[in-house]
């Protein structure tokens, strides 16, 4: 089930909210969330939901196992006991193993066959929905227990709630246990929560349905065609730029919906996107894009000494290799990760002081170019097509500057693309600033906001009638 679908909006969500707000005790509310989250997940994975539960059970015990016992705490040991270390290793093997098997086995075996000429049977395994997200979440929990940053959750149901909470289960943000640990036990949905949550959810829905889905039709007719050998220069650039906008609105829209839903139920997730296209260098881009993933790698990968070496560059290499790998079981994603890794290393070497001296315009052009071409790499899973595409970008493209298809697309989608570009800017923050001028302005902004929410909800719902297939980009993660 996807958030941006009529069945979620008008069948699942009303029922869930009805039960959640009818039942008064917090324990009951948590129960409602667990039931509906499992329902939500099993809708798409009726059998493999068991793996989710298995992961919850195993990590429940491991979380307790890697944490110091009361006796050990009293002893105040400087290093963890052997038992804890072993159980940590077990948890890493189990969790990474799960993702590895379900997501990467096909890729690995195919490549082994290709490189070594072996004829191993290629496993036909499709990853479970959301496995990359919830596995990372649960890993962060166990590691945090080991580092004693959090106390292990002794109630299985509360841990299960953390793992399977449907707002963030399928496509993030990757929520750390510490972020909502307290809220599991102690939260209230205030008026502010519900109001902000609703507005946030609708904003995300609009981003996904009104912007992202419509933008994708352009992508489909340019770089998304089966045969791109006829792509013109303008076609290639226009297509990949629109694609970059599409990815942002698709993913950040989904995160908005997740955060909004969480908020309605009284949870406060951290932001996952912060207007990434405002960035002035690539390092900044990745502090604004998919923040929960970046911070996960920063906190758990960066401190690892690579072959015993603690070095900025080796750490960066490791992080960016993993970022690429996480995004897909395909070579283009790995290239994509390392591509960004190179730019980050380059900027790190240059140093902040020198970067700050470069004129703003150059920095903006640089970032947008890097990001756009980056998304081109991200888009083409077939490396042959990727090569063709990259060549199409150059002035030496034999197909010429443009053709009727591109010009027609650009004309027919002119306002849509302009609106998308405008919406990349922090409009909400701008309006909040505006409302601080006076009470009247504040009221006007509030009322307009409500009117806008209602309008966007209706428009999105209507547009959803069209989507008989409505795949979300990060579906296979």
């Amino acid at each position, binding site marked *: 089930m996807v958030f941006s679908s009529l069945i979620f909006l008008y069948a699942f969500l009303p029922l869930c909210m009805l039960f959640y707000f009818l039942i008064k005790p917090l324990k009951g509310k948590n129960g409602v969330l667990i039931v509906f989250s499992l329902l939500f997940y099993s809708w798409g994975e009726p059998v493999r939901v068991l793996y989710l539960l298995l992961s919850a059970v195993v990590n429940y015990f491991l979380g307790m196992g890697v944490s110091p016992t009361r006796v050990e705490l009293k002893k105040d040991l*400087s*290093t*963890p006991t052997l038992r804890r270390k072993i159980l940590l290793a077990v948890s890493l093997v189990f969790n990474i193993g799960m993702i590895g098997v379900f997501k990467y086995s096909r890729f690995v075996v195919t490549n082994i066959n290709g490189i070594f000429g072996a004829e191993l049977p290629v496993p036909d395994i499709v990853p479970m929905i959301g496995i990359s997200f919830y596995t990372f979440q649960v890993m962060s929990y166990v590691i945090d227990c*080991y*580092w*004693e*940053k959090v106390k292990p959750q002794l109630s299985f149901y509360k841990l299960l709630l953390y793992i399977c909470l449907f707002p963030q289960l399928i496509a993030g943000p990757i929520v750390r246990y510490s972020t909502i640990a307290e809220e599991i036990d102690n939260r209230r949905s205030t008026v502010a929560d519900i109001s902000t949550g609703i507005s946030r959810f609708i904003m995300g829905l609009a981003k996904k349905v009104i912007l992202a889905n419509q933008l994708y039709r352009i992508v489909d007719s340019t770089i998304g065609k089966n045969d791109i050998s006829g792509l013109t220069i303008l076609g290639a650039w226009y297509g990949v730029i629109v694609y970059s906008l599409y990815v942002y609105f698709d993913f950040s829209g989904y995160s908005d919906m997740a955060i909004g839903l969480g908020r309605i139920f009284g949870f406060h997730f951290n932001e996952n996107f912060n207007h990434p296209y405002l960035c002035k260098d690539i390092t900044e881009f990745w502090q604004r894009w998919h923040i929960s993933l970046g911070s996960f790698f*920063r*906190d758990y990968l*960066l*401190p*690892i000494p690579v072959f015993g*070496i*603690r*070095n*900025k560059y080796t*750490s*960066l290499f490791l992080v960016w290799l993993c970022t690429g790998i996480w995004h897909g079981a395909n070579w283009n994603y790995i290239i994509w990760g390392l591509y960004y890794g190179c730019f980050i290393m380059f900027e*790190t070497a240059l140093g*902040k002081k020198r970067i700050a001296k470069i004129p703003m315009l150059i920095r903006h052009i640089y970032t947008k170019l890097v990001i756009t071409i980056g998304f081109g790499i991200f888009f083409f899973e077939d490396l042959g097509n990727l090569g063709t595409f990259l060549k199409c970008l150059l002035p030496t493209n034999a197909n010429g500057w443009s053709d009727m298809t591109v010009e027609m697309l650009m004309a027919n989608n002119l306002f849509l693309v302009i609106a998308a570009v405008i919406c990349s800017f922090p409009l909400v923050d701008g309006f909040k600033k505006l409302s601080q001028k006076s009470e009247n302005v504040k009221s006007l902004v509030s009322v307009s906001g409500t009117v806008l929410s209602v309008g966007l909800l209706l428009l999105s719902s209507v547009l959803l009638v069209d989507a008989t297939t409505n795949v979300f980009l990060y579906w296979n993660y």
Partner: protein
Amino acid sequence: MGREVVRKRLTEVFRDVFDDDSIVLTDNTTANDIEAWDSLEHISLISAVEKEFRMRFTMKEVSGMKNVGEMISIVAERAKK
């Protein structure tokens, strides 16, 4: 190793890593107090401290130390000259 000795040597390391001779370390200094100190530089810093004092931080410590004071304590305990 005494804390003050550690502090002195540590200050040199900090000044070197962050390229800033004006750095002064108190027990309560945190990353907030030093402009260039971000998660990447943190790795360089940890590496430099480990090299200077010929010791190793645990993973937990690398991401869990709360201020320079704590770092000094750990170094003081574990440094080998």
